[in-house]
């Protein structure tokens, strides 16, 4: 991928900074081959299921289950895909999932960074109590509130509707913790002080100073939230009772349960469901491989 260009005060962590190398450069070159060997075994293990799912999705179920099995991609992909389309509303589910993930992410970034900025840089009455409460409830497992959340959704009339997925997801304390931690160290107080002297209020400081400086932290929170929303399964399984309104995950699971005998078709569906998130990840990944050494690999 492209060499990352990072805004913000990144110099600190960059290994490419003229900090001295850990190991004396005289170390034997031979020894440096071993890690690559080990790492490639791991890479193969990590990527093999993807390859195998492509093999399954492009062959027929019968090919896969023959002895010896087919180990190379076949020519039945379109047939398997059209079988998926015949059984579930794939694009409807895709659109639902995308809308929920995008809206959730946008709102989480906004709300959490606002709250986090307040906690990171401002002293106000109740700050400690509120943050302690956040910490305490963060420790509680999610399913503790599953039943009441369902009953609340019932009262709101949101059962079977997409806002039932978005709104509870906004109340995730993780983002506030993360952004508070990030902003308290990366947003320089001097700049804030200066901007206040210029007459900037809280929201302008947030928008003009905190948000630009904390962009890498926000990028992480964005992908974390997006992936979590995209892949959420338990909650949609419970609240999305309307068969016309499903997400990719619940549709996929239905494909498996109702038509589980056609593995090739199920795999084609699974593959199609992960491609968008993979593309999104690869697209955003430049934020994550962001350190100096990344530049070494073109």
């Amino acid at each position, binding site marked *: 991928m492209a060499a990352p260009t*990072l805004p*913000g*005060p*990144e*110099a600190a*962590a960059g290994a490419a900074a003229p*900090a*001295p190398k850990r190991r004396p450069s005289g170390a034997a070159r031979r020894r*440096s081959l071993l*890690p*690559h060997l*080990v790492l490639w075994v*791991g890479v193969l293990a*990590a990527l093999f*299921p993807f390859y195998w799912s492509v093999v399954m999705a492009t062959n027929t179920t019968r090919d896969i*289950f*023959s002895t*010896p*099995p087919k180990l190379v991609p076949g020519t039945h992909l379109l047939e398997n895909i059209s079988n998926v389309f015949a059984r579930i509303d794939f694009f409807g589910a895709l659109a639902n999932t995308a809308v929920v993930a995008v809206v959730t992410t946008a709102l989480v970034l906004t709300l*959490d960074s*606002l*709250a986090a900025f307040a906690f990171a*840089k*401002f002293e106000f009455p109740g700050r400690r109590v509120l943050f302690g*409460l956040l910490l305490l409830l963060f420790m509680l*497992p999610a*399913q*503790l*509130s599953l*039943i*009441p*959340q369902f*009953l*609340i959704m019932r009262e709101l009339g949101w059962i079977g509707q997409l806002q039932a997925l978005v*709104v509870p997801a906004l109340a995730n304390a993780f983002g*506030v913790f993360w952004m508070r931690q*990030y902003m308290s160290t*990366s947003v320089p107080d001097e700049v804030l002080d200066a901007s206040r002297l210029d007459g900037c*209020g809280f*929201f302008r400081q947030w928008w003009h100073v905190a948000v630009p400086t904390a962009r*890498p*932290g926000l*990028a992480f929170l964005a992908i974390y939230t997006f992936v979590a929303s995209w*892949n959420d399964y*338990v909650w949609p399984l419970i609240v999305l009772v309307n068969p016309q309104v499903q997400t*990719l995950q619940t549709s996929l*699971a239905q494909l498996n*349960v109702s038509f589980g005998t056609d593995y090739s078709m*199920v*795999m084609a569906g699974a*593959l199609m*469901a*992960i491609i968008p*998130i993979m593309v999104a*990840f690869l697209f955003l990944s430049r934020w994550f*491989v*962001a*350190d100096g050494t*990344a530049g070494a*690999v073109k």
Partner: protein
Amino acid sequence: MTLTAPSGAAGPGAAAASAGRGRKNRLIRPARTGGSQQRLGPVYLAITPFFALFGVFVLVPVVFSIWLSFQKYSVLGGIGGSEFVGLRNFEFLVQDATFRRAIVNSLLIWVLGTFPMLAMALVVAAMINSVTKLKSFYRLAYFLPNVTSIVAVTLFFGALFSEQFGLINQALAGLGLSGVPWLTDPWAMKVVVATLITWQWCGYNAILYLAGMQAIPGEVYEAAALDGAGPVRQFWSVTLPLLRPVILFTTVISTITTLQTFTEPQVLFGSNTAVNPNSGGPGQGALTMVLYFYQQAFNNNDYGYGAAIAMGVFAVVLVFVVINFRLARTGDDR
């Protein structure tokens, strides 16, 4: 990933700190220097939307859940139709052989799915840290399993481990070994679930470790090298001790998440034939605590008992998280 990010100070330890050390290590500078008091109205305004949602969807549900666990809740009757039953749900819970089985299953999946995974992640991180080429490629490749949906991945693994014609058993047969009934033997089922967890989370944890390793200043290694420590010694005596906060953080997070495993067994073994009312696979070998909770709450519609199970799950998770911290502290004393 994240954590390699720019401001070195917000490194991997930072996430750990937010869970554990919190305010202790970092003084927050009130942004009111020079005596001019910042107006607090906008500050409260900024935290209000989050806390409003947090109150409605986290605080209220937790309190409500505690109330529910003392009720026999009538699904159609609603709150008015429910009946206070005291500790009866909890009495049932402690006698419930199925819940005990679910606890044991969850613990076994935790042991099988956490410790080998974290050890492998450390090795991977050390390896990536030691190379200069392909660094970002490795990061991406190892991280990729983590962004794929659990449902899709579970479907892949279900096909891989399928009993007679799955690739794993075919490979075993090719080696002249007999196949393993991966999806019906209670032990093999747990191994499959643990393998899935390992595959999906190993790279994620490796990247957290890597970030931690990169935050260790080079001078420390130089000093160790001057003392005559080779790379292996350096790993044991420098890297590992300095990584302790990150290791503790990943162990706690992995403990919390694996003890609450749900999707893998639900997709692999959730629904059975019409005749067999079991879930969690044959012999309920992969019935986890959260899967049992789900069954009781949303299949049997026993909300009161479901709430009691949720509290039970919380208690079990809490015990093991505390054990994690205790172990970490014992290490400190040495």
